[in-house]
């Protein structure tokens, strides 16, 4: 297997980095700083301006990041700067109104962090407003983690035969103390973290229906833990759980185990493990495969901040804009994932737990 087989954007992004690129960041918190650092290393000095509503952030950051112009008003920044690309890295509640403003202002290339919106009706409204040629990509970076990309390729090529059952989880220890931060959003771990897992299950297996969904409040007034059963379009059952309140998980971890008619596959951000009954050409005529993360990322990607999938995601966005192609996590391509999340919330049986 060659890296270029599963990461075609390796070639595509480089053309763009030779151009004079102007990037704007909306929201200069944790994710804004992460993406702007990656972009500035992929193409030096491409981040030109930042809009953030916090006076504390804009004042402090403007003294430190001297090559960047800071604004507290998005409209003013768009008018004065006319950026080529705009990254939205604010809190989830504000994504819809900011994207609407950008679409109205004819900003044609937009990246928005996950979740893109809070529900499907907002998503449909935005997709309806977009013109041909507009690109809005969603930051669902798990699709850019190479083990998941590799797993998708193996499942699509039926290396484990027909998928018969899937077990999956997404767990983190991010919220282990009480917080009211998510009260106004009225949605919790499923929308914030579980969207990665749901999106992978839609992308890899074609998940499309919800059988049941149980949520539990632990640290917040919304879902901190949930378990659910989904069905794919072929009727395959998927059992999943999601939490952000498990202190054993220092970093978020995504786990998927698929059992098929010819073998099984386990994949996380860290490794891919495959065992099949007969040797397969895609497995170099072997019956087993075990690849850990370091073997996927050998001297690659060209920028290494946080997890490699963030850089690959940004390279993919640059590549898509450059080649005028639809990103794999475009707003249009995550409609099914958001629809499934809405259905899970509608069917969620909520309880209070520890």
């Amino acid at each position, binding site marked *: 297997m060659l890296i270029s087989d599963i990461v075609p954007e390796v070639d595509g992004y480089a053309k763009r980095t030779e151009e004079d690129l102007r990037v704007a960041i909306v929201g*200069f*918190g*944790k994710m804004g*700083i992460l993406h*702007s*650092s*990656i972009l*500035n*290393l992929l193409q*030096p000095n491409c*981040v030109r301006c930042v809009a953030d509503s*916090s006076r*504390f*952030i804009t004042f*402090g*950051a403007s*003294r*430190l*990041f001297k*090559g*960047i112009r800071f604004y507290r008003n998005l409209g003013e920044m768009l008018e004065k700067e006319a950026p080529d690309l705009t990254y939205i890295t604010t*809190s989830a509640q504000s994504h819809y109104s900011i994207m609407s403003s950008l679409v109205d202002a004819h900003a044609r290339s937009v990246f928005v962090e996950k979740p893109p919106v809070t529900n499907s009706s907002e998503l449909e409204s935005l997709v309806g407003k977009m013109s041909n040629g507009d690109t809005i990509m969603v930051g669902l970076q798990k699709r850019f983690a190479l083990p998941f990309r590799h797993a998708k390729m193996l499942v699509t090529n039926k290396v484990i035969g027909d998928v018969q059952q899937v077990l999956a989880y997404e767990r983190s*220890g*991010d*919220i282990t*103390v009480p*917080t009211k*931060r998510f009260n106004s959003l009225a949605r919790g771990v499923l929308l914030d973290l579980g969207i990665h897992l749901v999106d992978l299950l839609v992308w890899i297996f074609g998940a499309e229906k919800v059988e049941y969904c149980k949520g539990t409040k632990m640290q917040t007034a919304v879902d901190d833990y949930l378990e659910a059963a989904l069905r794919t379009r072929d009727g395959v059952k998927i059992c999943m759980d999601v939490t*952000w309140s498990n202190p*054993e*998980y*220092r*970093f978020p*971890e995504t786990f998927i185990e698929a059992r098929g008619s010819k073998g099984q596959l386990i994949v*996380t*951000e*860290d*490794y891919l493990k495959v065992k099949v009954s007969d040797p397969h050409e895609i497995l170099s005529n072997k019956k087993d495969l075990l690849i*850990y*993360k*370091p*073997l996927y*990322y*050998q*001297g*690659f*990607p*060209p*920028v*290494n*901040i946080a997890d490699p999938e963030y850089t690959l995601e940004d390279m993919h966005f640059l590549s898509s804009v450059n080649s005028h192609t639809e990103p794999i996590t475009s707003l249009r391509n995550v409609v099914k994932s958001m629809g499934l999340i809405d259905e899970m919330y509608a069917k969620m049986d909520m309880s209070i737990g520890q």
Partner: protein
Amino acid sequence: MVSEFLLGDNPFIGVSHLAQEKAREERKDSLVQNKARVIEAAAEGGATGFTFTAHPTNLELLAYLKTKNEPLVNSMNYYILVPYAQAYVTKANIEGTPRLMWSTLRNAPIVDILATILSLRPERAAQILVRKEILPYLKILPREKVKAVLLHEVITEVVIAFGLNEVIEQLSCWAERLGVGFGLETRNLSHLCDRIRKGSLIPGYVMTPLNSLGYQMAASKQAVEADIEELATQTKLIAMNILASGAIDLDQAISYALNYKDLIHGIVSASTKPARIRENFLKLKMNLTT
């Protein structure tokens, strides 16, 4: 020739760049007594120092070790990584970034806050943050044995990406006044070298991954290998992640490190198993000091 053989702390604080499953298992074994035994075994194998993140469990470990084996604590060299970034990431998830920044500053001495605001120099905030984390360790460790404070990659990569030279200058001066060295930890060595070529301050130490796979070596394995040759003449290089997070074995790692033994100042190895870490340092020392 390599002169520092440093025990790393990743397995002590639940970090594995190979698999989080492994890290969770290791953390379950990580009682303070076990970790102290690992440090003792590392020293028996020839380790000359300990490099660690300013994680609360490391403070507990060093305090414990000082009561049990003070001569060992006094004999080792220390390279402390600050800030303990994951704690801030978790707080940002709960509070949001602006509130996190404000609450961090609010807990600093009033003189420092006023100096930061009145001087209109937010880079001083980095110094406040670093000092707050480092001081508890300086109360336990002999000052002359703290060889360097290393800026954690979470901050370093932002500094490199935006050329925030003032942050490096501010921290270098502060470390100098404190009587310790100052360095950067980075996974983007080639990008750091680009900044240095454009006139950025050269830190006293640079800690960076170096392994035969090229894992965590950006912009590429070839670029980092070339840059190491250049940078070694200007700073003290410390090679970390020599086992590519466990994807290669020690013999392969040594074979690769031999190419750089005249260029690197220090090398890091880590394990939760006393026997293994003793063996690792015996082999590393035997091969890289002759």
